[in-house]
């Protein structure tokens, strides 16, 4: 009896405590989110969370501007050929591979079909068709009779187009070998030319959003199957995705979430990790960076591969993206372990090694970042600081005034770097941005232009301390990294870069609002990269 009289008091106390917490929080939306976060990452309620963010940010199907056609990237073309034709090697190797430095290879505006690329497609398609037919794994008829090859061409096209063929398409494809034979080609050559034609068709080269038609009842779901597979596997949808589109079941967010989880658990998702990480972290052109020339090519190659393996681990093990900055493990090979001052592993290939030293751990202590932000003969604190603002915080600094560009280079080159950079802050026009950039970069002065640790530079002992504009100070790169890790701008920035990569364009304001809300869930340590990718995808692809 007495026990019963106490219980209500306790409940009231707990309620009062909860109300006081809620009162401190800025918005009701935040409360909901925090409650959801506390339930952990695998609560299976991704779709409700997505709907909530969409409502909060005003995101609807009509606010997304998905283009009608999206050209496959070179990587997606190559993966598609491997799946479709069992092609070996890199089918896109001879393609013009001019990486657009402005963003990602998925960039819709940048990745345009120029005549040069069209010719590369044609030549590649012809070559692949010859090899495919030579492999014998195709039309059973050794004489390549038109009756046999017609059906084989249509069947190949159905897989290549990633959806059922429309009636007109099927008729034209079935007629194609006959047309070539009529034009004077031998039966086998006509078959080869027909396959080359399929590989050059816009239905294959572009992911298209079609309207529903007779024979294609769930056009939007087929488009979704391709969206999912090309985004996270860089390849064609598998039979499971296509079957769901055929049955019309790839529609609810619950189902899509389940598919996303299945796909991200698959090894093929490592291709997403690679494509995104090398471009986000600038590792794909490391060999052409000025400071890389002083390193053995094998080291440079493995520093590049390290970035991929490191980010891949975050996806595979669903690690929280905040730890990208200070993970207590590192990927090294037989040649990069000595580079990092670590013991050579027993086997030469790239492998995970746990570390204890504060000198390494996380992307800002990796050779890739340190080398690409260096000049040929010395590290560049300005570049290192700017890189952090650009890629870690997504707060690119304003451009310098025209008459001040490079003003510093004209100064006394004998001064220690810290004193030279101090001149930035004497010029009022420069002070604003450099007060932020320079301390960030100077924190990494213990890493030379090759990314190796040094206790001293040419001028003597190194001072890696600094103060940020908000007053927080640090004594080492490791301490700065902890400040960056605590900044909500970092997970938001990672999410923004992922979204830019998957959308193929800069997110609009409503999308940015949604991306930030999703990224904020990373406050919860259990919220991993997979969770983030599932939530971002569901949130940014409103269901019509």
């Amino acid at each position, binding site marked *: 009896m007495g026990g019963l009289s106490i219980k209500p008091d306790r409940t009231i106390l707990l309620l009062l405590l909860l109300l006081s917490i809620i009162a401190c929080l800025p918005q009701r939306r935040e409360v909901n989110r925090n409650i959801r976060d506390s339930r952990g990452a695998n609560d299976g309620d991704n779709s409700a969370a997505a709907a909530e963010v969409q409502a909060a940010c005003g995101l609807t199907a009509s606010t997304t501007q*998905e283009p*009608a*056609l*999206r*050209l496959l990237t070179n990587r997606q073309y190559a993966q598609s050929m491997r799946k479709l034709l069992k092609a070996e090697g890199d089918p896109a*190797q*001879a*393609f*013009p*591979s*001019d*990486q*657009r*430095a*402005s963003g990602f290879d998925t960039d819709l505006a*940048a990745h*345009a*079909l*120029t*005549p*040069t*690329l*069209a*010719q*590369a497609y*044609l030549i590649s398609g*012809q070559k692949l068709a010859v090899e495919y037919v030579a492999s014998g794994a195709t039309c059973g008829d050794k004489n390549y009779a038109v009756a046999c090859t017609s059906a084989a061409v249509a069947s190949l096209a159905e897989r290549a187009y990633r959806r059922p063929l429309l009636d007109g*398409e099927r008729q034209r494809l079935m007629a*194609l070998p006959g*047309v070539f034979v009529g*034009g004077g*080609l031998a039966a086998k050559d006509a078959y*080869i*030319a027909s396959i*080359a*034609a399929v590989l*050059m*068709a*816009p*239905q294959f080269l572009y992911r*298209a*959003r*079609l*309207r529903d*038609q007779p024979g294609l009842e769930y056009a*939007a779901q087929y488009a979704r199957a391709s969206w999912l597979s090309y985004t996270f596997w860089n390849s064609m949808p598998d039979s499971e995705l296509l079957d769901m589109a055929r049955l019309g079941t790839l529609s609810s967010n619950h189902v899509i979430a389940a598919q996303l989880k299945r796909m991200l658990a698959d090894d093929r998702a490592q291709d997403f990790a690679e494509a995104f990480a090398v471009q986000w972290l600038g590792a794909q052109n490391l060999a*052409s*960076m*000025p400071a890389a*020339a002083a390193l053995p090519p094998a080291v440079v190659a493995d520093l590049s591969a390290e970035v991929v393996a490191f980010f891949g681990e975050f996806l595979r093990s669903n690690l929280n993206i905040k730890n990208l900055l200070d993970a207590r493990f590192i990927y090294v090979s037989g040649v990069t372990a000595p580079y990092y001052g670590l013991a050579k592993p027993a086997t030469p290939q790239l492998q995970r090694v746990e570390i204890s030293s504060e000198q390494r751990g996380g992307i800002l202590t990796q050779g890739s970042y340190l080398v690409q932000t260096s*000049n*040929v*003969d010395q590290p560049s604190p300005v570049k290192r600081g700017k890189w952090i603002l650009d890629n870690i915080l997504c707060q*690119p600094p304003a*451009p*310098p005034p*025209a008459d001040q*560009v490079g003003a510093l*280079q*004209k100064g006394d080159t004998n001064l220690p770097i810290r004193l030279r950079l101090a001149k930035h802050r004497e010029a009022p026009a420069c002070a604003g941005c450099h007060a932020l950039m320079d301390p960030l970069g100077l924190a990494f002065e213990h890493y030379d232009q090759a990314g190796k640790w040094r206790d001293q530079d040419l001028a003597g002992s190194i001072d890696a301390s600094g103060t940020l504009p908000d007053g927080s100070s640090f004594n080492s790169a490791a301490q700065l990294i902890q400040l960056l890790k605590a900044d909500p701008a970092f997970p938001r920035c990672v999410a923004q870069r992922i979204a830019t990569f998957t959308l193929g364009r800069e997110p609009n304001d409503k999308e940015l609002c949604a991306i930030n809300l999703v990224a904020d869930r990373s406050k919860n340590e259990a919220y991993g990269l997979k969770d983030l990718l599932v939530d971002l995808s569901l949130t940014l692809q409103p269901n019509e």
Partner: protein
Amino acid sequence: MAFRSERRRFLRGMGTTLALPLLDYFLPRGRVYADDSPLRVIYLYLGNGAQWQPSSVGANFTLPSALTDLAPLVDYLTVVSGLSNRPAMARQSGDHARGCAGFLTGETAANPGPMIGRSIDLLIADQIGQKTRYSNLCLGGEPKGESESGYVADYQNHISWLGGSSPNTRELDPVAIFNRMFSGGSAEQQRSQQGQRQEGGKSVLDFVRAEASSLGAVLGQGDKSRLQEYLQSVRDLEVRLGKTGAASAGCQSLTPPISAAPYHEKIGLLYDVLYHALVCNMTNVATFIVASETSEQSYDLVGVPGSHHSISHDASEQGHGKIARIAKWHIARFSELCLRLKATSEGSGNLLDHSILVFGAGIGDGSKHDHVNLPIAVIGKGGGAIPGARHLRYDGTPLCNLHLAVASAAGVPLRKFGDSTGVLSWT
């Protein structure tokens, strides 16, 4: 002029990637050169600026140190000094971006971009490029430069622009280009193989054009301009496939490059591929950005270690000397190409008689980031339009006047381009 630029903006706004309808840009076409040999127009671009103004003007001038390797070609050499690229000037930073993107477009690069007009090389290729398999060749020596001052990085890596938001596709790998142009076998075998491939290729293109049309009818909501882009590329490809062209003597023995080498060797290999493309009549128009803007290559091999870009900021005499040594190295590679072209006979003369090669930079003094007194060296007689052996000085004249003069010599007389005020005289 005002009307034209408005129309350009309108077309860009439509997101079209088609070539501008050029009719009103052109006067009736006429050939300047005497014999039937085609004319070649090549633009080469050196990032980070340079200076090579001879001290005296006219026929008797002393070659400045950067240009001494052009001595054996002096009869074909026209040094043009004093030209300005006004559209690249602005009261804000980003001179590398604007200088490079504006070099052949005569327009101000939009910030952040990319958004800029069609470049002069492609306007010329639109007319004379139809005679060869490749309407133009677009080469680059370096994979990427950094973005600058809020501008997209593309501006610093591309001088050739399709108009709108797309730069021309640069090709960086000499092996890949060579294999695409001359895949295996002797020159004769290649031509016969290519003949067969072309027949197949054309039929393939007939099919895919029909597929593109049918696709257009069933597309859902969203931007459909990509389909236009596809059709345009297929059309251009068809033209390429239709051209074989008689090859010059130099086309008989081709040595394919073996590997994509480090930067300085690769420049030589790319010049090699360019030479082969010209003597085999694969193309008549080309651009080659030998060093991107803000390039950080080190030139240890001529005693100039360190970042090219950083060195360009050194305003001291010593700094200018280093930039001259870097320019000299590039001019030496350029002169090797020119000498090979001169040694290739064609018609009543040699290939240089029927070529215009413009080697220049979009920045004059790198330490000032300016766009005045641009360094320009023109090699070739342009089919008789260019007398050569001269140093011309045109202080303050728009660079676009030179573009008009080159286009006119190529049989593509434009009335106006960029900020042009008239056609530059070659004498």
